[in-house]
């Protein structure tokens, strides 16, 4: 699940441009991981060895595995094992960038190792470890460009990435966040979460991206932008903000938040009077521009507690529903 952040890591290291990354993300679905990439990732072959086998493949039409076995680089068992192991999906984006000539196998090897090391990602992880890593990745994402991001904004994004993974698909990459003072929307839905602090989020995308987003979200196949597509995007925003409220109030009973209905902000110039973060998120079908405006009331009680993942919040919600069941 770390492909989302590997792309962002490459951006932060200036190993790729945004355009190169977007292109590779859109292209990667047509590709499969190759044995050479897998062997390099497993530490069985060096980048140079992989390149040499690939060069030999240009002279004779044979499989990578056959050549590697013949040259004594890999055993048959190793090849078998590589083909059957689960691999991190960020390898594919890396391999696509190598294919596009953005960098070499040697570079890829180096970036993967430093990415894993800097983010303490190991090959085998429990769900809990994955969650903790996601927390760290979200934090790093913001440290690059912003200072003093409130804790609840990080929680908000953490939950958003989880919800995108669960409801839309894992093939997204967040670009670097920035602070904006105004923004011109295309198709845009917005919702206010208010209470001890106020957070307004905007989901902005093109019509085509909205059609694809809605199709994935409600498992339907919309063909053109209409009121159902718009309602689907609003429904996702409403669900996500609702889960955020549940998380916040589970973490801190002092804080109570309410939701306003989602509203359409199509083709509008949003002028931001309070601090507003712009975070573009790339999917193969298009870019979602997420804007978050925050303002705090003076006596705000800000949550400084553990992050719940969305599954935990759903469980907590069930308990709440049982209580309500008894009331009604």
């Amino acid at each position, binding site marked *: 699940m770390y492909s989302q952040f590997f792309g962002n890591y490459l951006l932060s290291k200036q190993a790729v441009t945004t355009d190169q990354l977007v292109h590779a993300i859109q292209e990667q679905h047509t590709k499969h991981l190759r044995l050479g990439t897998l062997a390099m990732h497993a530490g069985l072959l060096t980048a140079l060895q992989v390149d040499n086998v690939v060069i030999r493949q240009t002279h004779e039409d044979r499989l990578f595995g056959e050549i590697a076995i013949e040259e004594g680089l890999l055993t048959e068992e190793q090849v078998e094992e590589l083909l059957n192991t689960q691999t991190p999906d960020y390898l594919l984006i890396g391999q696509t960038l190598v294919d596009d000539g953005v960098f070499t196998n040697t570079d890829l090897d180096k970036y993967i190792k430093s990415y894993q090391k800097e983010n303490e990602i190991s090959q085998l992880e429990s769900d809990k470890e994955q969650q903790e890593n996601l927390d760290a990745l979200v934090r790093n994402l913001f440290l690059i460009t912003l200072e003093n991001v409130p804790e609840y904004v990080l929680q908000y994004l953490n939950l958003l990435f989880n919800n995108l993974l669960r409801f839309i698909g894992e093939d997204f990459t967040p670009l670097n966040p920035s602070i904006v003072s105004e923004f011109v929307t295309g198709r845009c839905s917005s919702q206010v979460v208010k209470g001890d602090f106020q957070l307004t989020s905007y989901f902005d995308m093109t019509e085509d991206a909205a059609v694809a987003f809605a199709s994935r979200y409600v498992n339907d196949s919309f063909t053109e932008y209409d009121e*159902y597509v718009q*309602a689907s995007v609003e429904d996702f925003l409403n669900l996500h903000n609702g889960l*955020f409220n*549940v998380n916040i109030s589970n973490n801190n009973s002092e804080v109570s938040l*309410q939701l306003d*209905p989602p509203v359409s902000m199509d083709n509008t110039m949003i002028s931001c009077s309070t601090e507003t973060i712009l975070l573009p998120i790339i999917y193969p079908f298009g870019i979602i521009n997420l804007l978050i405006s925050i303002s705090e009331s003076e006596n705000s009680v800000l949550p400084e507690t553990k992050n719940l993942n969305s599954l935990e919040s759903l469980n907590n*919600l069930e308990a709440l529903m049982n209580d*309500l069941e008894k*009331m*009604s």
Partner: protein
Amino acid sequence: MKLEDAKILIGDDSILARKQLKDIILSIGGTHFLEASNGQEAIDLYAANSPDIVFLDIVMPVVDGNGAIAEIMKNDPAADIVVVSSIGTQLQLKQAIQLGAKDFVQKPLNRNQIESILKTRFEGR
């Protein structure tokens, strides 16, 4: 009363949510629908049509679900209102039940839940 004869009022600002609920109720046997896209429309449609059951979203523009429940219950204390709540609106949901809502369902909607709510109130086909 038979479900096919029942007047069913659905109040939700999302056209998608109204369609999803309507599709479920249609598949169970309901046929007469009234649709409101905000709390005020729900109040007005209730007054004009006296529906047999009302499904109401909480978070709605103009007048929210709880505002509508209060007004409908004031005019008709026997009103049968089921709250359809989104996740994260628990405070408002508690309030809705205190205001007189008889039942609630949680989005995303579950066909079985809707069916059991309708079965306790109406005869099937």
